[in-house]
């Protein structure tokens, strides 16, 4: 069995107004070193397959079909084995 950890963020080229609002708030708290903030979604899938490759493949398909919208979002997938 594998756990797939998926991060979805608004594309780098698109303004993320939520991230900007939080960034301003962080700046006002004195965190001058934080120069960019982007907010996204985190999704975990438990996938009952035999290999990491298969888990990756299913995760990628799920992102393309449903979990992310390719018009405005990017995603990253990290798969690890779970006992």
């Amino acid at each position, binding site marked *: 069995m594998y756990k797939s950890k998926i991060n979805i963020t608004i594309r780098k080229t*698109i303004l993320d107004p939520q991230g900007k609002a939080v960034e301003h708030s962080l700046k006002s708290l004195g965190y001058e070193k934080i120069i960019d903030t982007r907010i996204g979604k985190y999704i975990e899938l438990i996938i009952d397959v035999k290999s990491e490759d298969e888990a990756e493949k299913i995760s990628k398909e799920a992102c393309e079909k449903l979990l992310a919208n390719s018009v*405005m979002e990017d995603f990253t997938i990290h798969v690890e084995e779970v006992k």
Partner: protein
Amino acid sequence: MGAAKVGVVVFPGSNCDHDAYNVFKNVLNTDTKFLWHKDGSIGDRNIIILPGGFSYGDYLRCGAISKFSNIMKDVISFANKGGIVIGICNGFQVLCEAGLLPGALMRNKNLKFICKTVTLKVENNKSIFTGEYKIKEEINIPIAHGEGNYFCDDETLTSLIGKNQILFTYTDNPNGSINNIAGIQNANRNVLGLMPHPERASEEITGNTDGRRLFESVIESVL
């Protein structure tokens, strides 16, 4: 007006379905039925309305889950065969997610849910949705959305402009939409998506009737 047979899709979480139904049925005296999201077919309907609301709780992304509902399979195949489909607000989001319209609706630029009447400009009156309006006419229609910030890449925008697919723009952009876009049609000119709510502006009792001509245009087109 006997030829129009309107179907208003009801998703779990739709909340403007009755408004749309009321305008077609009672204001425009049209044969109108609700279509439940679990239905497998749109039956004999020749105009499909995807109403406003929060289908499937807006979970994941607005409209993302709705596109896989049972009724949408038939709506998509109907649209691909040239059938008339109008998505209002959440319905517009569903149409973009389903790939029937290009682009996507993102969070409003100011992060706020905006509920007010705005002024739209009719950019193209040569469509089946806007035939009853004058070109460049300004109309007042209410909006009520948190995710109405229309976005598409440059290539898509060029194509939207080139093919006269932009039907309505905001005169004072409320949500950050690219090129002030409020409503677009597909390249085949049979699918319309718009964020504003013309069904809330179709009777004197709701304050103005600027939205009614959109529905009259589309009914006229199927006669």
